[in-house]
């Protein structure tokens, strides 16, 4: 198979020039405002999946007056099909720490945490060594900044930022109401900047090469590159850095096994795109005028024609049913009923029209659930049921 498709590969994140000390020193000598403006002009958006403009996040937190502020790196990478953050933390941890320190300087925070998921406990010893080395350098240049690791304990929901704060405060990981947003009131009700691991790694790229270099990559509304975690039915699973704005058909030509029937973009909480929509779907953030543009945390799971989409949906729903924190009714009961519902339709206990009722239930969850988990169950549920209805029935 020729590989001359239009996928634009890039190599920023994992390129290690070992220059973090210079990057840190150089940027700490600039004005906070200048740094924020650089980040804003790069149009970097959160790489955890939600896509909030990172520069704006920093700016909002910087504008709040408070003696105590926090910077938190969200390394609770729990979305099925995502494994890029682990790779960043094991290969280029200094980039993340440096970006956290620059963030601390910009917003006026002296304490920072990395919330690391329990499943990645094995990263902790090495990461602690790196943090010690980083602290030594901060002391040398008289920059007061402390980073600590906070371990999670196996809860997907704690990747949601306010649930993560609750967890760090020693409580059940149940999301809070928003507003107030973390930039104003986050961990310990103090202004908190919380960024995904990859977002911080991109911020490092921007503070190293300048905003323009980053902005020139990608397409309108979706600037820069993104790490993609590719898994499923593909001959080359792994982590790839690609420019945003690619079309899904180019992606599948490159990564598919020749028999790809659907791609799940954005993990279990994302969307399933069937083959007939590959050409009109691009990967990036909302705002494109033609076709569908899907935001993503970078999870790309490919399914070939040997897979039953019923089993796929069953697996997702079981995941959500277990990981729902149980706090709000739409999500707690909704997840249970959706799972029960598709099983009933499959077994013939309910007729096929029951699927329409379930679609309505999913829509209700989207509107009424308290946080992103409950709201996004409908994404995969509806896109699978609508596109593969026949597989749900028999």
């Amino acid at each position, binding site marked *: 198979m020729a590989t001359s498709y239009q996928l634009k590969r890039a190599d920023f994140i994992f390129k290690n020039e070992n220059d973090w000390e210079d990057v840190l020193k150089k940027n700490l000598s600039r004005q906070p405002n200048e740094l924020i403006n650089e980040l804003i002009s790069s149009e970097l958006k959160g790489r955890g999946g939600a896509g909030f403009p990172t520069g704006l996040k920093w700016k909002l937190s910087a504008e709040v007056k408070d003696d105590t502020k926090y910077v938190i790196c969200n390394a609770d990478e729990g979305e099925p099909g*995502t494994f890029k953050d682990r790779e960043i933390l094991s290969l280029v941890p200094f980039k993340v720490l440096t970006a956290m320190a620059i963030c601390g300087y910009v917003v006026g925070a002296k304490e920072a945490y990395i919330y690391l998921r329990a499943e990645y406990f094995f990263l902790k010893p090495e990461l602690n060594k790196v943090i010690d080395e980083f602290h030594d350098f901060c002391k040398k240049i008289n920059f007061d900044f402390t980073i600590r690791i906070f371990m999670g304990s196996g809860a997907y929901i704690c990747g949601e930022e306010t649930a993560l704060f609750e967890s760090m405060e020693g409580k059940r990981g149940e999301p809070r109401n928003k507003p107030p947003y973390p930039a104003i009131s986050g961990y310990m009700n103090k202004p908190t900047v919380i960024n995904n691991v990859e977002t911080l790694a991109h911020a490092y790229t921007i503070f190293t090469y300048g905003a323009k270099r980053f902005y020139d990559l990608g397409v309108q509304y979706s600037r820069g590159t993104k790490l993609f975690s590719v898994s499923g039915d593909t001959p080359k699973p792994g982590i790839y850095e690609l420019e945003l704005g690619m079309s899904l058909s180019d992606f599948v030509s490159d990564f598919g096994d020749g028999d790809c029937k659907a791609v799940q973009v954005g993990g279990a909480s994302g969307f399933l795109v069937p083959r007939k929509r590959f050409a009109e779907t691009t990967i990036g953030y909302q705002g494109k005028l033609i076709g569908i543009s899907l935001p993503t945390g970078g999870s790309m799971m490919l399914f070939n024609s040997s897979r039953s989409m019923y089993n796929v949906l069953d697996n997702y729903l079981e995941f959500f049913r277990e990981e729902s924190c149980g706090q709000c009714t739409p999500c707690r009961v909704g997840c249970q009923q959706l799972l029960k519902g598709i099983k009933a339709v499959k077994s013939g206990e309910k007729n096929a029209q029951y699927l329409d009722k379930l679609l309505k239930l999913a829509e209700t969850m989207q509107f009424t659930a308290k946080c992103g988990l409950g709201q996004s169950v409908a994404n995969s549920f509806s896109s699978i049921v609508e596109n593969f209805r026949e597989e749900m029935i028999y």
Partner: protein
Amino acid sequence: MNPVSDLIKTLADQYGRNRNNLLPILQGVVEQETYLSEFSMIEIARELDMPASEVYGTATFYSFLEYKKMGKYIIRICKTITCSMKGKNQILLAIEDMLKITVGETTPDGTFSLLQTNCLGFCHKAPAMLINNDVYTELTPEKVREILTQYLNKRKEGGQNGN
């Protein structure tokens, strides 16, 4: 004094006695004891001066904080989509057959507990499992039998040294 009470005191001294130190303390107990007994949770509540029900409520929220007695090695098989597609069930059957336990059970000698877990973040190397904090990927039934045999041997040697 009870060794668990000592451990909890030490952990509380190390991390502090505020509510936001609760999770590290719970994790510290699980690391040593493999699970949180009712006794430990009450002790933690006493040490941190908070209601035992709050400790219980928090601890039982997290899937890696076990509150039933667990074996020395906790096997957690990833059951999420990619691992499931790539043969998770065969791995599970191989383990069940070898250890003669099913999911949720512990071997009578207290060596292994078998659990399923959600996405471990090794989808590109599926199927994957954790044994305590160590990750094993691209598993096959043969491979998993070898891994478990190593653990069994380690356990035997450990037992002899203990005598």
